[in-house]
Structures are given as structure tokens and as C-alpha cells.
């Protein structure tokens, strides 16, 4: 009898282990939804352009600090916008990283959208102000359920990649 009780205790233990290792299932995305991942790191333009120092200005500096140009490090924030047709899916102003605000601005956003066809537009302004976008891309995509569409920015080609 004692043996059976002991066996029962072990059975309960492994049942709990077996059950909670897979159950209950977790629904990450609903059946009729898809994901757009907007992911990139991009450095905005410098706020102030580099300036060549005059000889007179250079002479005023200590000898070990006589760099020929003065380049303030601070960069513009990066404004980014993602739309599906007329609907804005995401819009934000990304601040440059670093304590001198001279690093890249980064974004990592996973946006859930209904499955189906989407007329996507993505735009970015990296030169300051609220004017036009400096880089844009538009594409018509079929977002089948569960699809993960990735939007990145290629710094070398200076364009958005949508795949």
C-alpha cells in the first residue's frame, strides 16, 4: 500500500512536469494577423556642418588640439513614419544615441496588422525639421496570416528595404 502511495506521488510529480512543460498553449498572434517589423539604426545628419578653421583660430588653440576643421558632433533626430493606405501604422521621432547625441538613432518595432493586401509607405527624415521625407519607399504586399514582413534601411544604398 505504501509502495502504491509512493508511486502515486511520483506519478503526480511527473504529470505536473509533463503538463506545465507544454500547456496551456500560448497564442502569440491571432490566426488572421501578420507582423511588420520596422528595424534599423541610422545616424541623422549633423546639425552643424563642419567648418574649416582659419589660421588665426588655429593659432589660438593649444598645439595638440589644432584640428583643421571644427565638426560639432550633435545629430538631427530621425523622423520615421509607416502607413498602410491612409492609416498610419507607426510614427515617431527617434533621438540619436550617446551622451553627445552623436550616435545612431535606432528603432525596433513589431506592428501587428490584419492579414491581406496592404499598400505600404515608409518614409524617413534625417535632416531635421518637419519637412519632406529624405527617404521613402512604397510597396503593395500580400500579408498572409503569420507573415513577418521586415522593413530595414540600407545605409550604403540610402534606401528602405522591404522584404
Amino acid at each position, binding site marked *: 500500500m505504501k509502495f502504491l502511495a*509512493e508511486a502515486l*506521488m511520483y506519478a503526480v510529480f511527473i504529470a505536473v*512536469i509533463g503538463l506545465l*512543460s507544454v500547456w496551456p*498553449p*500560448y497564442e502569440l498572434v491571432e490566426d488572421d494577423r501578420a507582423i511588420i517589423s520596422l*528595424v534599423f539604426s541610422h545616424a541623422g545628419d549633423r546639425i552643424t556642418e563642419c567648418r574649416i578653421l582659419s589660421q588665426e583660430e588655429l593659432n589660438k588653440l593649444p598645439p595638440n588640439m589644432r584640428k583643421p576643421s571644427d565638426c560639432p558632433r550633435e545629430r538631427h533626430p530621425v523622423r520615421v513614419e509607416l502607413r498602410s493606405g491612409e492609416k498610419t501604422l507607426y510614427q515617431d521621432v527617434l533621438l540619436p544615441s550617446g551622451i553627445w547625441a552623436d550616435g545612431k538613432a535606432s528603432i*525596433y518595432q513589431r506592428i501587428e496588422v490584419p492579414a491581406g493586401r496592404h499598400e505600404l509607405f515608409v518614409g524617413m527624415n534625417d535632416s531635421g525639421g518637419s519637412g519632406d521625407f529624405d527617404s521613402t519607399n512604397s510597396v503593395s504586399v500580400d500579408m498572409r496570416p*503569420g507573415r*513577418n514582413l521586415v522593413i530595414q534601411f540600407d545605409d550604403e544604398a540610402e534606401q528602405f528595404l522591404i522584404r
Partner: protein
Amino acid sequence: MIERIHRTGRALFGALRRPMARAFESAENPLNHIGAMTVFFLWIVLISGIWLLIFFRTSVSGAFESVEYLTREQWYLGGIMRSLHRYASDAAIVTIFLHIVKEFVFNRYRNNRWFTWATGVPLVWIIFVLGITGYWLVWDELALYVAISSAELIDSIPIFTDSMAGNFLSDDLLSNRFFTLMAFLHLIGLPIFLVFGIWLHVFRLTGPRINPPRRMMAATLLALLVLSAVYPAISHEQADLAMTPRVLRLDWFYLHVYPLIQLWSPGWVWALLVGVSSIIVIAPWAPPQKKERAAVVTLDYCNGCERCVDDCPFGAVEMVARTDGTNYSHQASVDPDLCVSCGLCVGACPTATPFRTRGALVPGIDLPDSSAANLRESIITAGQNKSSPHVIVFGCRDDRQLKDLDAAGISYVKVNCMGQLPPSFVDFALSRGHADGVLLLGCQDGNCSYRFGAGWTEQRMARLRDPMIRSRVDTSRIALGWHAPWSDNESAVKKHEAFKRALER
């Protein structure tokens, strides 16, 4: 407040333990070996992991394929090993949780025990990260989810410029090197920290129990083998970076926090994890417990026999060179920062004898707040109750059933831990007519507020360990009533009655 939480926790723990106490002998009850069971599960994880490593390939496509090979083609061995690896890891989380709860509710984490308690926290982190990186290596849909969510969590720490999570969005960004890195972390890096962490965790304990009884190990391994054979661990579909997994069979033991990353935000999840860990670390001082004074050595009576050093469960007593000019080579020395005032050293001291006729009862080592002299007085007082047969019960200070004895008008003498009672005091109670019988109602091994109290007492009474009960003592008049005060199926009063009836016979 904290005492109320402890009491409630003990009652809940007792409710869990009660059915187990019916099924298992005390020495075989897994709840008395929770810490050692965790180490045993980690052994299973290690051995099964070595088998998996032999076949595992550290590349984007090879990782999934090699695990699938083990699961499907080599199901009879590799599949079983994989399942054992997973289920033993899960079981370790259960025992770790119970271990933390038990140490907390039985108040075994405050004062000088803070170090052992606090060093358990990084161990828990290491084990969770080990488990999480293990899921990552399978590179199925669950692995992709774990990878992205973990990366989101790491990205939320504002020290990284580029997004780590961005690496898991397209195939061309993911490299084989990444799997080599994860395999290194899972197989070498983290296990090294784990072994060091376990060493640090038990560093202050004398004779830490890291292996459960063999029968329990065999039964547990058999149970896990049955589970692995009946319900083998399988992978999800292979990770596809162009798709988002929709429904996942999460391992809730390791991944319970992950849904919160989506539900709340990574920042709040960090706040939760760091907050809970911090609360656990500072728990020994919230609020600080009134500390009994540490044991003190009186050199006039210390002959340097070393028994206190052998019996101290916390390594608080050591032998040092003699300082009083007597002929003994060594003397005992107590480190107050390690002493928890359990009194086991007093129980081991041969000079702690109540029969002393000259001078005050001052043993070589004693507790200032619960002295041997007070113990003798308590026996004399308890002996004044002249029921027949008269049984004096010795009970541990933290035993809640003592108040039941009180209510029933039964004489008892309180000790810090049963191991504090030198056998000569039992002899004293019986031979000087203070009692017809002595019931030692100590806390069962695994339920002791300190450590070794039951084991040392049992050996002393069985004349297997110094100081032994003298041969003139009729041991049939001594009953050892080890019990778990919070989950006993039999009350202390009933044990007392049963012993009285036995004495009458």
C-alpha cells in the same frame, strides 16, 4: 507581519507535506531533500546534455536537423536523452522553488544565514539563463520566439546602439557563429558559473547534503524515464524568419515571464525580475531578526576535544592554539558571524554535565541566552509535576506543537534544537527521579530549523556518537519522537500518551 507570513507559509507547506508524509518514510520523503534533489536533477541534465552535445551541430540549419535526428531517428536513446534533459531541467525549477519557499517559511535565511540565502539568487538566474539558451539551440519556432523576445529584453537596456533583435528577422543576418556562441554559453560558460555558484551557496555549511538517498534517486530517475518514454519532448516547426509563430507550446517553468514582454513591455519585465530578486536578497534584513548571542567558550572547562567543531553545522567553531598556558594544545574558538546559536556545540561538549557538584554549571562552550544551567533548572522544574508515570518532553523552540502540550498540562523543556541537549541531561532527568521517561520531540531531519539536530541526537542516544548516553541508562525509558511540527499526522500530545502507555506496560 513577517512572522504571520512565515506561519501561513508553514501551514501551506504542511498541507503539501502531509499526504507525502503518508506515502514516504521520513528519510525517503523528497520534501526533506529538496536542495539535494535539485543537484540530482542537474546531474541528469549534465549527463543527458553530454549525449545531446555529441550529435548537436552548431549551425543555422544543422541545429534543428541534429535535434530532429535525435528525436525521431534515434528516439530510443537520443530522444529519451532529450526528454530527460528537458524534464529534469523542469523538475529542477520545481525543487528550486520549493527550496526557496521552505527556507523562507521556516525562517532559515536570516541573521548569519544570509550569505547562503543571498548566494542562491544568482544561482537561480544562472539556471534560468541556462534553460533559456537551451531552448534557443533547438532553432524551432519556439526558439525563434525565445530568441526575439530575449533580444527585445536585452535591447531595452539603454547601453546598446544596434538592435540585437534585428538579427533574427532575416536569414542573411543570422550566422552560424551565433549558434557557436549560444552553444558555448549553454555548454561551457554558464555551467562553469553554475558550479562555482553552487560551491559558494554551500560554502558556509558543514557537510552540505548534495545527494539525496539512492532509492529516491532511482525512483525519481525511473519516473522521469517513464515520462520521457510516454510523452517525449518534441520540437515545433523549424524556425522560419519570414513567418511569426502563432501558437506555441511554452515551457512554463522557464518561459513564464516571456508573454509579459509582449503584454507589458521589456522595461516592466526587467523591473519585475530585478525587483523580485532584490526583495529576496534583502529579505534577511526586512526586518532584521533579534539575534541570540553566539556561543561562548570558557577556557577553564574547555579541554580542546574538538567535538563542538565536529558537530557545528555551520562551521562556526574552530580549534586554535591554546592561549591560557594550560597543557592542552588547542582550544575552541567561535566565530560570532557564523554562529546561529543552535546549541549543537553545547550538546557535543563533554563538560556540559548537570551532575557537577562543585561550582556553577559552566560548560566549555555554552549559549549565553539559553545556557546549560538554565536547562538543568528547567528539568528540575518540569520534574515537580508528579503524574505517574511522569514523562518530561524535550521540545525544539520552534515547534508549534509545544503549546498543545502546554494546554494539555504536559511538562516540557524547551531547547533551541534537540541537538543542544547533552545526553547527560537525559540521564540526569531519569536517574535523579525527575522523570520516569523522557520523550525527545525533535524536528525530523529536513524540518530542523538548523541542521543535523535529529541525526546527532539519534547517534548520541544510540551510543554511536560522542558524547553518548551512559550505559547505565535504561534506553527503553527514552523515546525519540522525530516529527515535522507543521505537517504531522500525529499530534505531540498523542505521542506523549502513547509513550506513557508504553512505560506503564
